[in-house]
């Protein structure tokens, strides 16, 4: 088989990879894989996906199945490194700050807020919330991924919303606001 034909034969899996790799990346990161290791572990996940594709029987969605492989890979990698995964401690204020002049800066700020807020949730709530609200998996898929009932996922997501809503409602005055009102 020539290289060109091999490349063509690989195309369907390549499309599957491109479709799911960002999701896997985020799962690994969220489960504590160090930034420097993300590429390697992400590659390993998809080698496993490729090898085990014949075992996939469609009892769950493909995304849930891939999620499980990624989660376990992250766990195995963390254990191998004897390092406890944790979201970074953040002292970012959780109030809604003034809009920045630059969209990218605003996005970065919003993501830092979200990361800090999610860190305050329990692991189960955080994962359910992220999978449902951000990764937009279905309730059934999240239940499958977490190994719990759909009602439990429903509770975790709505409870997380309540907590995040409360965090967003806290509004300590940011320093620059004081400056805007007459200087330091």
């Amino acid at each position, binding site marked *: 088989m020539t*290289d060109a*034909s*091999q490349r*063509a*034969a*690989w195309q*369907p899996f*390549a*499309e*599957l*990879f491109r*479709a799911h*790799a*960002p999701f896997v990346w*985020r799962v690994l990161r969220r489960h504590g894989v160090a930034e420097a290791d*993300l*590429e390697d572990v*992400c590659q*390993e996940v*998809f*080698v496993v996906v*490729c090898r085990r*594709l*014949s*075992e*996939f*029987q*469609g*009892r*769950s*969605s493909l995304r849930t*199945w891939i999620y*499980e*492989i990624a989660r*376990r*890979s992250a*766990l*195995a990698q963390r254990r191998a490194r004897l390092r406890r995964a944790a979201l970074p401690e953040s002292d970012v204020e*959780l109030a*809604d700050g003034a809009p920045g002049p630059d969209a990218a800066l605003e*996005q970065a700020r*919003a*993501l830092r807020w*979200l990361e800090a*807020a999610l860190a305050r949730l329990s692991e189960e709530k955080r994962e359910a919330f992220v999978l449902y*609200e*951000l990764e937009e998996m279905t*309730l*059934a*898929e999240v*239940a*499958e991924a977490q*190994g719990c009932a*759909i*009602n439990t*996922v*429903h509770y975790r*997501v*709505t409870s997380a919303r309540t907590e995040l809503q409360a965090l*967003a409602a806290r509004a300590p005055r940011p320093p620059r606001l004081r400056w805007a009102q007459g200087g330091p």
Partner: protein
Amino acid sequence: MSEPLERWDHDAPKPFRAAKAAYGQLGPDAEQLERMLERVEQAASLPAAAARGGVWLGSKFWYWLLPALCALGGVWLWMLEPRPAPASIVPKRDAIGHAAPARPSAPAVPAPQRHETKEGVGHGVPPEPAATTAVGSAPRAKRASDPLAELALLDRARRVIGKDPARALALAEEHARHYRAGQFAEERELLAIEALVRLARRAAAERRARLFRRAHPNSVHAHRLGVILSPAAR
């Protein structure tokens, strides 16, 4: 049964809405994606990797590789597959050397297959296990889907779409007939839409794209679909 739960949107706090808008961009950049894909291909493609001299070899590798090579040639050699299909994802020490922990069996949740196949182009009838199997693959007759066989069929379509889009479209329709409950319906539809664009059947392509978007509103292939339908793709 729980009430349906809508995504947190209008009543979500502003920081969350802003973060969600940015969240989807988190991930590897294009260069990282292609680099990882190439390495996955090297690890999974023994002949090509052997030529480059950088392949990992392990005895278990052959259990995947031979069926995969035969699938690419259109012939299944299932007698060489040493292990029965597990009922669930049973953690084993995989070829990479990671020992994943054991996991309890799947909880009682509504059958995802029922959920995932009630939507989707070409899935207009209640799902039933795809009975189509490759020659000599009796052990697989009861499976609801056959991912490698699906990929092999879609691969054949992909290989000819440039020079014979009509043939590619026919192969995509064959996939729709044989794998109604298959896992690669979205990929099939993308191929079919691209084939229609190449055949200058623009209206049909856009009609099929509308059905795709309705059936898969959160598809990860949304961007690719836009590229296929863009005027520059003509």
